[in-house]
């Protein structure tokens, strides 16, 4: 294979690995701007991946699977939101428990059931796919990939330009002040978690019925945590967060391509890159100053 072919292959595999991260990152970004450090992202993606495959197998339609994935993400977002921002259980505890629960439940169910393989159809954009090097990776993809073109600007608009987003950011920065001005803090946080759940669900479902076509135990394998690392790496800005997703997706693709390229590099460095980069971003750059001021802190009216 020529070098150009190699690059093209790594690019397309990198993009395919980026897409689930990017969907979930849009959700996590919005949830974190509202002040929830949403650890249960992993549960949302994994649960949605399982639900999408099960539904696709039952209905015979991969698109129905995709919808089911979104619904399961929403459901987990609803549970997390109500436990953390209505009943005031610590949000990290809720996340840990939901992750454990969904991992256990999906592993349990996949062991005793088998599903048919379904995949959403591929879209190949004429003309553009013939661009050398990047044409094939970017313009021959499963159709949900192009939903990103809708989801990313929408998320940006919601957070940065809509009234709802302004309230959301106020809730993430200064919940006490937001509360005084009449914003229902915990309601906004629950809504943010629903958005996060829907998108993380889409990402997880895309992974299952988009890329792979089937479900296997612990399929997401920590991708939720990678997305959290990407949001931190991106300093709570949408553009940089997505850049982080692309970087981490490419690192993953490189890791998978190493044996084929005949390189004897240790893959551990590539696996660990997202986490190290997130830590370095927090340590070296002053990204922590951009962190929503009340990230991860519960809102209790009257407390400071």
């Amino acid at each position, binding site marked *: 294979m020529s070098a150009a072919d190699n690059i093209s292959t790594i690019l397309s595999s990198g993009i395919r690995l980026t897409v689930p991260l990017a969907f979930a990152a849009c959700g996590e970004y919005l949830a974190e701007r509202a002040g929830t450090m949403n650890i249960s992202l992993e549960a949302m993606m994994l649960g949605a991946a399982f639900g999408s495959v099960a539904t696709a197998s039952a209905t015979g339609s991969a698109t129905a699977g995709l919808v089911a994935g979104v619904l399961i993400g929403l459901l987990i977002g609803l549970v997390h939101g109500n436990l953390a921002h209505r009943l005031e259980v*610590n949000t990290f505890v809720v996340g840990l428990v939901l992750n*454990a629960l969904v991992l256990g439940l999906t592993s*349990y169910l996949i062991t005793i059931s088998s599903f048919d393989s379904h995949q959403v159809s591929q879209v190949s954009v004429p003309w553009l796919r013939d661009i050398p090097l990047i044409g094939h990776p970017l313009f021959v993809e499963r159709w949900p990939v192009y939903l990103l073109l809708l989801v990313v600007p929408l998320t940006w608009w919601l957070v940065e330009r809509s009234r709802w987003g302004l309230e959301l950011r106020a809730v993430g920065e200064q919940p006490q002040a937001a509360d005084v001005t009449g914003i229902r803090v915990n309601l906004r946080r629950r809504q943010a978690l629903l958005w996060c759940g829907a998108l993380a669900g889409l990402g997880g479902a895309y992974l299952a019925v988009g890329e792979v076509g089937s479900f296997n135990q612990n399929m997401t394998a920590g991708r939720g945590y990678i997305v959290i690392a990407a949001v*931190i790496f991106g300093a709570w800005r949408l553009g940089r967060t997505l850049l982080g997703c692309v970087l981490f997706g490419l690192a993953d693709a490189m890791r998978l391509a190493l044996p084929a390229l005949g390189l004897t590099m240790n893959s*551990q460095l590539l696996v660990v890159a997202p986490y190290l980069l997130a830590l370095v971003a927090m340590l070296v750059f002053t990204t922590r100053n951009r962190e929503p001021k009340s990230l991860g802190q519960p809102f209790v009216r009257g407390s400071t």
Partner: protein
Amino acid sequence: MTAPSTGAPPGTGRRLLGLLTPRPYGWPTPVATAVGVVVALALSSALITLTGGSPSASVQALFQGSMADWTAWSSTLLYAAPLLLVAVGACVSARSGSFNIGQEGQVLIGALAAAWVGLRLAINGPVLIVIMLLAAALAAGAWAGLSSLMHRLRGVNVVVSTMLMTFVAQQVVAYAVNMPWLLQESRVGNAPVSPQSNPLPPSGLLGSFGEYPGLQINGGLILAVAAAVVIAVAITRTPWGFRLTMLGRNPLAAKHAGVRVNALGGAALAISGALAGLAGAVLLASPVGVNRLQPGMAMNIGWDGLLVALVARNRPLAAMPVALLFGVLRSGGGFLAATGVPSFLVDVVKALLVLAFVAPPVVVALARRRRSGGRTAGARQEAAPVAEEAIA
């Protein structure tokens, strides 16, 4: 924690009646917890039934694998020991107000340090295992201490950094067992080498004590129980424990009272890491595994130990029965498959049980606050510690 029963009537009978009567401030925590546990167990058996299994057969299998005979008990205790060590550490850090969720990585770092020391020194005599345990505690303590350092120097959130460091630790161990000059097993002839270390020398293994008929009490369990008792006494009976609790409840007040906040918080995090590291060394050196360093050897003990601490509501002594229960689930889980129920069931049961223990005190505190209209300062102050202890 027992709910403060407002104006409890004297006499056991009336007290019991009082527990069951709905009161102006809602149900007390123990009752709410009991309801939660019943719901959790009902949901679990519903899951088994819906998927074509038999709940009673599952309970029987769990019992067979964990408590039916001395061998089963020994296996249960083998799992309970590292779980208890991790949980006791989690109690310390959670009480100090910094929530350490990186135990899974700290367990691995402890095992890595213990394996490195054990294989490099390879001396005879009981001194080796002592050195290994010390090395594990030191290394994992330092690993967790890094998070505290990052928090102090650059304001990095402890929960986030301990979580990210877990994944770094996993890759550090994977790297170590892939490098022949580090810890990868030595090649014998032309046999292929796996990503694992050489087996530990016999002097580096934790022995079993007390040869009761069939029951093996591993050294790790004695270590874990000792740690739980020492930490429980330290937390509840020493000035250090008082300062620790004060720091966790109200860092600002603690600072004004002269507590060295950074030093104490850092120490708490390091201690919790050290105990998780000890759990790693115990996993490595006890017959629960193959006595080699392997990337997958932590077996979620770190995450589960954290859940044990949550169920025990951060009390080391309460963590002992909970760790035993989780040990029962782990060692009984292997017997489930024979009844047609996947062993992953125990993970579902564990998660539901944790919810049943974590949610009620918070809900009760919230209900109490709501009923009092959130107006009276006294009601708020009464509710606040309840909520905080349930945090983690």
